[in-house]
């Protein structure tokens, strides 16, 4: 039953989890501090109470947690597991790269691993180098793993529900700086949508900007500033990164003739390169060279002032877009 409610981003995640646990009796939810305490960001609050033993806390054992998700998924559960920070995934990366990814393919489809890994990433003021990274690109080089990243309450809800419904391993990447954001009217309660697709956040004629994650709002702010200068940027938020909607980007670039990709992740080896490569490989005719705006290939310092010098700021985005359109 569809309804419109006012929820912030964290509330939308919570609602999607609750609905998924309702829809799928085989769904289970676990992670460090997610059950009795309701999550270190409060995002899973109330779910233990509502769903009992299906929602539980785990030891600080990411490998065991991901293994538990894979094994239970093979056996017909639909686990949703939280890795508190994307940075922590690397203590257990084998379970994603070598295990979850291979379940369906290697077994010729006899086994499946319908699991969802919820995590969150990115820098927040004062966060240390081990709590600040943007690592989606690593997952995007691992066939067999679906990946999505959201920045709005509506998508936080919709994408998570699609992820849980998906019969393959999906990593949904959130951002802790969004959880306590402003409430928005969102529609909840419909059937989960199929995975994939993009969001057109701002139509425009002069340049196609592809972005994802929490930096989207910075991109939109930059685009608004440029609108005042007469530069009309089209902003696509690529909520699903695998599968990625390359066709949508191609169609947009075909109209605008220019491409800029913005991500908070380090530039070198980031997924921006893939998007640029796909567009130019297709032979699209561009009015100016494509550009990427990402972090400056660095570790992330804790000092806010230093981190700002590493991570892409609104001015970097505005500058990059201006350069792309030749102004």
């Amino acid at each position, binding site marked *: 039953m569809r309804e419109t409610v006012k929820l912030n981003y964290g509330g939308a995640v919570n609602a999607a989890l609750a609905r998924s646990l309702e829809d799928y009796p085989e769904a289970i939810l676990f992670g460090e501090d997610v059950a009795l305490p309701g999550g270190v960001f409060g995002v899973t609050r109330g779910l233990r109470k509502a769903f009992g033993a299906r929602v539980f806390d785990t030891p600080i*054992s990411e490998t*065991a947690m991901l293994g*538990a998700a894979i094994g239970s998924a093979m*056996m017909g559960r639909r686990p949703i597991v939280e890795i508190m920070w994307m940075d922590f995934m690397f203590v257990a990366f084998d379970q994603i790269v070598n295990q979850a990814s291979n379940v369906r393919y*290697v077994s*010729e489809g*006899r086994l499946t691993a319908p699991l969802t890994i919820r995590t969150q990433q990115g820098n927040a003021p004062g966060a240390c180098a081990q709590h600040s990274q943007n690592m989606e690109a690593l997952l995007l080089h691992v066939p067999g793993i679906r990946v999505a990243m959201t920045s709005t309450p509506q998508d936080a809800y919709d994408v998570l529900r699609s992820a849980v419904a998906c019969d393959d391993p999906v990593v949904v990447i959130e951002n802790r700086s969004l959880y306590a954001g402003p409430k928005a009217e969102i529609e909840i309660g419909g059937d989960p949508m199929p995975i994939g697709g993009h969001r057109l956040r701002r139509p425009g004629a002069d340049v196609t900007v592809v972005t994802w994650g929490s930096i989207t709002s910075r991109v939109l702010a930059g685009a608004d500033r440029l609108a005042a200068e007469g530069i009309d940027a089209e902003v696509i938020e690529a909520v699903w990164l695998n599968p990625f909607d390359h066709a949508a980007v191609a169609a947009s670039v075909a109209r605008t003739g220019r491409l800029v990709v913005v991500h908070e992740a380090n530039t070198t080896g980031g997924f921006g390169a893939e998007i640029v490569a796909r567009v130019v490989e297709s032979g699209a005719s561009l009015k100016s060279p494509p550009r990427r705006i990402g972090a400056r290939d660095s570790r992330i310092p804790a000092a806010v002032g230093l981190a700002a010098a590493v991570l892409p700021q609104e001015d970097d985005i505005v500058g990059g877009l201006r350069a792309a359109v030749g102004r």
Partner: protein
Amino acid sequence: MTTDDHLADLHAMWRIRVLEEKILELRLAGDVVGSVHLSNGQEAVAVGVCGQLRKQDAVFATYRGHGWAMARGVPAYPILAEVLARTAGVNGGRGGSAHFSAPEYGFYGENSIVGAGAPIATGAALASTFDKSGRVVVTVFGDGAMNQGAVPEAMNFAAAMDLPVIFVCENNKYSELTPINDMVRNPDLSARATALGIPATRVDGNDAAEVAAATALAIQTARHGLGPTFIEAHTRRIVGHYIGDAQQYRPEGEIEADLAAEPIVRLSQQLIASGVAADTVEATHRRAVAEIEEAARRALAATAADPATALEHLYA
């Protein structure tokens, strides 16, 4: 256990041994391509454990898993077809010797990352606590795998949550080319489980009956909701770790001693000593040979995996 039970165990072990020997032969002949890890000498563990399992139970093994698959009931033909990269293989040749699965037989796969199967098996056991299947899960790994963080993580997770999983450590004294006793201070690996609050036993892994007894207890524990058990089964592989492993790391006399203590020889001798006719004992071997020869013949004749299908089954 009756004599017939012992003969059944012997036959089950011969089936594995002959399968492994056939795979070795096919590998040396070039029909099988790539690395294979044989379980010769360790058959009693798989036979002892799997003999106690029910259909719904699940086994998670390692790259040294052919015998476990067979002990779970996977027929020789689809195993050989898999190892030979045929369409008729359990996974159409995608898994190969080191990474195949056959869930329809309760064989949830080999794993070629040391230790990585334990957390996944723990997850399968977690599912049992929800689905009321009564499923017990067995995960097997080597002595060396005990030093891989995934294993203690999985054991603690299972202990904390009382999950119905049995951790079977096949302690064959070596990890590849390195003796386990050079890599640990305390050679009693089961102590690690005890420290986590998991009931643990050390058994003669070359005695299928002893393994079976320990497994039966572990299964009871698991089915009663009392959680995991750890079984350290002492055994020896009487072949190299990989094809071509010259086993120079073995101290003098060790291989000979291992050959004398290996489970098939031992059980055969015991049966004969207890009065069973030599021919009855030998018949277990002959039946195994006939079965495997026939399966190998069929598998060799089967169609190779079709490259046109290579990109299928990546996603739903």
